[in-house]
């Protein structure tokens, strides 16, 4: 069936205007979708080719791209998308021993450590004692997903430079760069899912330990 076959005359209060039948509309939508896909492919190919011949010359930009591409949440983006994401990142410099956030604070942002050392601690969870994060690590990523309060303290143990990504910033990035945003959201979901599985396994192990202890008693 061709698009010509899907045409019909539509009665508009006595006047007849050309219109589409149901099949005609379906064919038209299919064509539109195909054009969209071809356009996306073509655009992607052109951008990739352009980026291959125009590697960022700025060493700082390259350093930033290297840092972000090593982070699980941001993996798989193109160079231009990393640079677009960089617009939404805020640089923060902390001195040694400075608090980044405290348990109970409203959580609004994720932190990426560029250099330095950060200690995460929570009085209620002894397992967390002495958990240090270093360059290339992230923390507070749950803030990108939902409104909640911080569940631990974050304090620097050396002079530390971080990049901060706010939930609002990520929302803007996703709206303005939908394809990159989709990848980041996919990565974030996978990352949080893995964290959840780890916690679940740890919980099961602890429950098992408790029940074994009870049996022994």
């Amino acid at each position, binding site marked *: 069936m061709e698009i010509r076959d899907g045409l019909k005359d539509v009665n508009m209060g006595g006047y007849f205007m050309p219109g589409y039948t149901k099949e005609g509309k379906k064919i038209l939508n299919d064509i539109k979708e195909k054009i969209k896909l071809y356009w996306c492919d073509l*655009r992607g190919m052109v951008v990739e080719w352009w980026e291959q011949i125009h590697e960022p010359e700025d060493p700082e930009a390259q350093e930033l791209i290297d840092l972000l591409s090593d982070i699980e949440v941001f993996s798989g983006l193109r160079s231009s998308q990393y640079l677009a994401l960089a*617009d*939404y990142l*805020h*640089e*923060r410099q*902390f001195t040694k*021993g*400075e*608090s*980044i*956030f*405290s348990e*109970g*604070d*409203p959580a*609004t*942002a994720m932190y990426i450590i560029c250099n330095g050392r950060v200690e995460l*601690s929570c*009085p209620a969870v002894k397992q967390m004692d002495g958990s240090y994060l270093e360059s290339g690590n992230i923390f507070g990523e749950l803030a990108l997903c939902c409104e909640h309060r911080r569940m631990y*303290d974050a*304090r620097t143990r050396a002079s530390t430079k971080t990049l*901060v990504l*706010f939930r*609002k910033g990520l929302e803007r990035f996703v*709206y*303005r*760069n*939908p394809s990159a945003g989709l990848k980041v959201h996919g990565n974030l979901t996978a990352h949080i899912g893995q964290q959840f599985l780890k916690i679940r396994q740890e919980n099961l192990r602890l429950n098992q330990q408790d029940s074994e202890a009870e049996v022994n008693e």
Partner: protein
Amino acid sequence: MSESKSWAPTPRLVVSLIHYFLPLIIFAVTLYFIPELYHLVSMLFIAVLFSYLLRPPVESLEHRGFSRYTSTALVFVVLFLILVTLLGGFIPHIYNQAINLRRTLGELEMEELLEEEEPGEIEEVLGIMGYLSELERSLGFIPEGTFHDQVSYAYDWGLQQLTLLLLTIGRILPHVAVYVVVIPFIAFFIVRDQQAIETFFLSGVPNVFFEMIYQIYNKVDQKIGEYVRGLAIEAVVIALLSAGGFWLLDVPYAITIGIFVGLANVVPYVGPVVGALPAIIVQLIETGSALPVIMVMLLILLVQLIDNIAVKPVAFSQSMSMHPLIVVIVIIAGGQLAGMLGMVLAIPVAASLWVIISEFSWAVKNYRFET
């Protein structure tokens, strides 16, 4: 946890806060001592407000795969084309209407009429007078000519005010020309580099307040954006409705007065009254009888009704919920501090301050501010 201490303004924090707010303080002091900078600052403020109008189409283009720079450039090209069309098509017509309106008002001074014409003829010119004189006679206790004098006085006052307004518009026209060129220029860079500007202003915030200030900034930004966009929608709808209505009622200079009513509506409560005056006076001069004037008043009331029932709830869903009394006080204060621009900016500035205060008091209760 043992190292942490509850929040207190340490000397380092105080210094960093002063460092952050120092440019703002210097700017305010400079502005106070050099009032000539008023135009520059007002241009900057208008450009910022204007950029809020342009952000949605730019972001929408970005969403469709264009870069920020290309999106901004495309929106400005479209805007330029619209401006050129307006300048070529409508502006000469509006300009002629405005010139004629001013000439008509200049010629029809009440005092001249009183000097040149017999009292009976004036009553013919203003048909209401005859009715008022009859009313005086029938009531008996009112001295003859009281209504006549009062109406003449009110009419005279209205004409004076309107002539003054039109003279002011004539005086500020050269400034308007500069504004029309400079404001889009500034707005272009504000829209294009919005993210960089935001990062720059937030870079100086002390670490301990960073997340809190970012939240406040975003809420204020959202509120102002909603308000400005709502205001623009409202002004356009009111201008279209008023101009259409005036045209149907055969009011002279319908387009000019319609646009004026739309623009005046930008100032809440005060604006609609100021906007209605030219329409009423012009209709009174043109027809000289009461019924057309009453029809114009009814039309303005109807437009205000439509505005309050249909336009405002859609345009300003929840952007600025302030008590009417506070709104009026704030507008008067804005007018006294910074004239016309102050009246327009009063509401967004007051609402932003309110958001800052309420968010800050919420934050003080909810953040621990450990250093």
